[in-house]
């Protein structure tokens, strides 16, 4: 039983990482098609990572610089363990949404430490922007999260997914608003335009990535792939029922749920890419005001709506 569970967890985590790397290539293809270019093949992500990881890296900026990215990769994989994927709970019964929120900070802080250790001022500015973005988008996001928790009376993501078996959260009126808010927060989480401020290539030389190369950059790409899967899965779990369509424990149900989960995170990711290609970049204070003024207000309206629904 335990061995079986460990095997399932290992399988799902590995698949999730591969899906993430695939999505990076697909994303580039979609952006290219919107730009009316041919674009790289969809497996470009695998090629890039394989190339970077097999490169010989001669340069290091100290042990913090090396270990920080290890920390990043570990953190993002750990986060995926605590998210239900296609209704398969993995470890998500052992923690809850607050734990996931804080686990997501591990890779971010690790990345920030590595960038800080490189000593490049551009990296520091990029990290500053990323952290300010984090402060910005977390406010509307946690408010929608609390609305969900109050409605379903649980803070466990696995429980929230289970409660959505009959009806996805997005079909309930206040959560339409909440999902719209959370989707814009997701745009910031994925660092896509108009919130690609922290990695702005033309302003600060790709920001935190400025000094990374070779294996370090390869590790960073794996981390980036992980974040795509983690954040889109978080959104799908919270609002779209985690992609669960069949509730019996048969093998077919596993496959169907997995397929629906894959389609849903792909749709969420594509939506984010389409917004990305249609908008120019915000300045950091504009992004901050956007999230804390309008988004937070909308999120708070949905929270109060849910609160009134629950207490009545």
């Amino acid at each position: 039983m335990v061995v079986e569970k460990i095997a399932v967890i290992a399988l799902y985590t590995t698949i999730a990482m591969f899906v993430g790397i695939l999505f990076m290539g697909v994303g580039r293809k979609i952006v290219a098609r919107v730009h009316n270019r041919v674009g790289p093949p969809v497996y470009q992500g695998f090629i890039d990572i394989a190339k970077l990881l097999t490169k010989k890296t001669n340069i290091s900026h100290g042990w913090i610089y090396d270990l920080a990215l290890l920390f990043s990769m570990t953190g993002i994989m750990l986060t995926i363990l605590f998210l239900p994927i296609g209704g398969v709970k993995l470890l998500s019964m052992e923690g809850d949404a607050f734990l996931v929120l804080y686990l997501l900070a591990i890779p971010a802080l690790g990345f920030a430490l590595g960038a800080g250790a490189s000593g490049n001022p551009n990296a520091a500015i990029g990290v500053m922007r990323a952290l300010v973005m984090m402060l910005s988008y977390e406010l509307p996001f946690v408010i929608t999260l609390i609305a969900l928790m109050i409605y379903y009376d649980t803070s466990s993501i696995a429980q929230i997914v289970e409660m959505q078996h009959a009806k996805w959260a997005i079909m309930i009126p206040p959560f339409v608003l909440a999902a719209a808010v959370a989707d814009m927060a997701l745009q910031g989480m994925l660092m896509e335009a108009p919130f690609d401020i922290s990695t702005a290539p033309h302003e600060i030389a790709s920001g935190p990535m400025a000094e990374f190369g070779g294996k370090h950059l390869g590790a960073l790409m794996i981390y980036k792939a992980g974040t795509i899967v983690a954040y889109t899965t978080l959104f799908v779990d919270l609002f779209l029922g985690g992609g669960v369509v069949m509730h019996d424990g048969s093998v077919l149900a596993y496959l169907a749920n997995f397929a629906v989960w894959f389609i849903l995170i792909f749709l969420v990711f594509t939506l984010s890419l389409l917004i990305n290609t249609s908008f120019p970049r915000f300045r950091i204070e504009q992004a901050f005001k956007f999230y804390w003024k309008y988004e937070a207000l909308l999120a708070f309206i949905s929270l109060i709506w849910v609160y009134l629904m629950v207490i009545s």
Partner: protein
Amino acid sequence: MLELIFAVLLIAAFATLFIKSGRIAAIISLIASAMPLIAVVDWANDFGIKAFSFGVENSMDFPIAGITMHLSITSFAWFFAVMVFSLLPPIFLFSYSFFEKNNGFFPFMLFLITAVFGILLASDFLTFFFFWELMAASSFILVCISRDKKAIMSYLAFSVLSAVLILVGIALLYSQSGTLLFSDIVLNADKVTVSAIILMVAGFAVKSALMPLHAWAPFVYSKADEPFVAFLSGGLSKVGYYGMFFVLFALPGAKILHQYFNSGVATYLLAVIGAISAFIGTLLAFMEDDLRKLLAYSSIAQLGYIAVGFGIGSSLAMAGALFQAFNHAFFKSVLFLVAGAVAYRTGKWKISELGGVGYKMPFTFMAALFAIFALAAIPITSGFAAKWLLYEAAVSNKYIFITPIMLIAGVGAFLYSFRILYGVFLGENRHDDIKEAPLPMIAGMFLLVLPLIIFLIFPGYMLDMMHSALVDAGIGTISHTNYVIRTGMASYNTLAVVIGMMVVMIPAFLIYVLRKQKKVDFKDNFLAGEPYEFYGYISMHAANNFYKPIEDVIMPYLRKGAISFYTALYNAMGRVSDASRKIYTGLSQDYTIYIIIFFFIIVGWLIW
């Protein structure tokens, strides 16, 4: 043996008054400060935790000058004693290297310890207030060592305010219940009025730097000696919360407030004040350039969480609050000691003047890193479990205002954490000529980091420790095993997190096996080997004005804060006093007119 402990502490305090060498004084203080810790460890047996037995009795009546001082240990005092007294030996170990000469730190620190020991043991309000004043006086002298006028004046003013509020509260309690003994007041709790409770809570809130009464903290924390500040922030603020815990839950003030207002509005207000403290403290913290002021604001923020727990008052929230108090005691002491160690080697406090210290002081950096993980509640230290309990408590009570504010303050903690890590320890290497901190300093810091790691894996031990305190205060306890905490909403398995982390680290490590590399200094890197010409120009440092964009947005809303209010009050009082001085003109005609006016007023009053 209880008398012996007090005697040893006082004798050590008087002895260190006459010792010039900081080294010898530190050793004496270290030994003396271990005495109350031994007593605390011994008393663990009384509260369901197996420990060593030294045979220290746990109560004493001490007649002095016709008054009897009643001293005895209770379960909640014991919990606070554990956290306060285990801080002291590491802090004195740190001070062994920190103080070349004994500048008065050691004797008054020992008086302070005596006072705190007395406060935690007191079982009547007279004893409590006596030791409270001893604590205020000795900590005031420790602040005076800094010779900074702002720090001294603000600490004095707020200490007096706190003492007055508490004294009036005690007087009201005495007049209403007719006794000063804790046990008798609890029996007569139905006679106690709301005003006494509110006054005492406000008095204790000053010591714990709750938001409108926090104005002394940034000045004092940024000027006094680091080992003292570590204890002030880590230990003494918890004594304030001990008083609050006692008044609200043992007396029980929360119930009296609830009956008076016919709803939980008063305690809810305390929770809101705590949450706003956490939020605004965090915002102010990441905009601060002075490392010690940053830590001071972060202290105010982190202590705000405890008030949230006390305000909510459910078993979940109280467990979270006490856990947070314990964590804060340790990680904030470590951070202030780290600041002390950095200043000991570099002599600088401003983040924009520091940088690259972590490469030369790796062990100090490691200690700071763990403390910061605990501060930011990253789930690889025990800091997360405490915040998690508080969030769970707030959500399960459907507090839609407190919960998001607390969560966003938690995110804000990453911002100032990174400012410390980048500005002080990483980034531009400006300190090629410094050495690692001396061994006693490192040992002191790592001893304080240790509990943060132990209670990460076994948060159940911590919940066991506070078990009898919560049960005795009538709050109840929450279901847990050694490493799983369960609430009505979810469960948190620390072992799953730790083991999961170790397991996924293996593939991450395999992907990432590195060959031998050449270490490249940052100067050869983005400067491309050019000489570091702008050395010393602070404005060129990336850590200078680090959060400028967000500062420009937020600062206009925070300019009219509490500190500017107190400054305005101070100036207004100066003007009023100045105006009233003008009636002394020195002319006899004026004085004659005053007498005549006064005469007419008296006559008019008599006729009317």
